[in-house]
């Protein structure tokens, strides 16, 4: 066993003298590349950007209908729902960032990270199941408000109602499934890699 230590130490001495080829630059600001946790962070951030994108879209719709107070109320409600999403996912994301990667032991650090990513994904899935059908309802109301000008004057058109009903049982579930599926595709591999590392630390060696 002693020669293991000797070989290990001699390797250290050798490598301390000679830098590995191509790794001369130590300037941390020039160093950029992907890392599992970084990649997960980026993907989470992408979700936040999507929410901001939809919020910007709602602002655009609001600006387009500035004169119609009732449309503004409806868009405002929807905007608040997105704001609520942004606040909650932002809170989770900040938690991940605040939980400094290297201040805890390895297992805890990985477990915390894993759990928080799962929390965000679960929240997004539940939120999607609620907001996607709401989006269709909002679309129908918007269409009627544009056509009739006010809630009081709206006469529900049977054709629109049937169309919305068909969409509600066909496209809406598909979109919900697509959201879950795309989450799975985007995060599955990275989360599995992370889980594997945690499991190998949790394994009882006895």
């Amino acid at each position, binding site marked *: 066993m002693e020669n293991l230590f000797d070989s290990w130490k001699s390797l250290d001495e050798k490598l301390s003298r000679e830098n*590995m*080829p191509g790794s001369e630059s*130590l300037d941390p600001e020039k160093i950029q590349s992907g*890392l599992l946790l970084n990649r997960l962070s980026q993907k989470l951030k992408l979700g936040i950007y999507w929410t901001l994108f939809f919020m910007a879209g709602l602002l655009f719709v609001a600006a387009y209908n500035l004169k119609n107070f009732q449309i503004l109320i409806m868009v405002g409600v929807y905007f608040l729902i997105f704001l609520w999403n942004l606040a909650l996912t932002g809170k989770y994301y900040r938690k991940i960032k605040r939980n*400094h*990667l290297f201040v805890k032991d390895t297992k805890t650090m990985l477990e915390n990270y894993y759990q928080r990513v799962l929390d965000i994904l679960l929240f997004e899935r539940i939120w999607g199941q609620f907001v996607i059908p709401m989006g269709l309802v909002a679309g129908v109301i918007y269409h009627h408000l544009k056509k009739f000008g006010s809630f009081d004057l709206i006469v529900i058109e049977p054709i629109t109602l049937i169309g919305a009903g068909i969409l509600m049982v066909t496209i809406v579930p598909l979109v919900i499934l697509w959201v879950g599926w795309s989450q799975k595709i985007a995060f599955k591999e990275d989360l599995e890699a992370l889980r594997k590392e945690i499991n190998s630390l949790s394994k009882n*060696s006895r």
Partner: protein
Amino acid sequence: MPEKAQKDLFIEKIRESAGYLHKVTALYADCRQDREDLYQEIIYQAWKSFPAFRHEATFSTWIYRVALNTALVFRKKENRHRTNSLDEIQDQAEENAFFISQEQKALMAAIKSLEKVDRLIISLHLEGYQNNEIAKFAGISKENAAVKIHRIKKVLTKKLKEE
């Protein structure tokens, strides 16, 4: 501390730990390019975390944690292909130049054949860390660490004898 001074201090400290960092990269990456990527990841992650380094531990202990945590979750770039056998020959030549002796090569190969977490544990053990420190480092119990070290050492000795 001004940022320039902080950066200089950081680079100086990293240089002191370069030997260990190179060993970690050799343990967790297969070819020169992956080693370079991992090395850079470690420096990048360490720099990001450097302001939080409060001198409660020595710099070497802290950088070991950064290096090992980074290495543990490091994944190779998926689009890297071995285009032809010349690449492999070049890699092999670089590999040969990287390690000084057959003994070192055999040791590294044996450690690399272990699970990622086992590599972490044995590298700390070979660096001279005590079982309780390794346990704290990895987030496992002291007893568990001792059992793991004993088992890893047995596996390593067997592998090296087979060489």
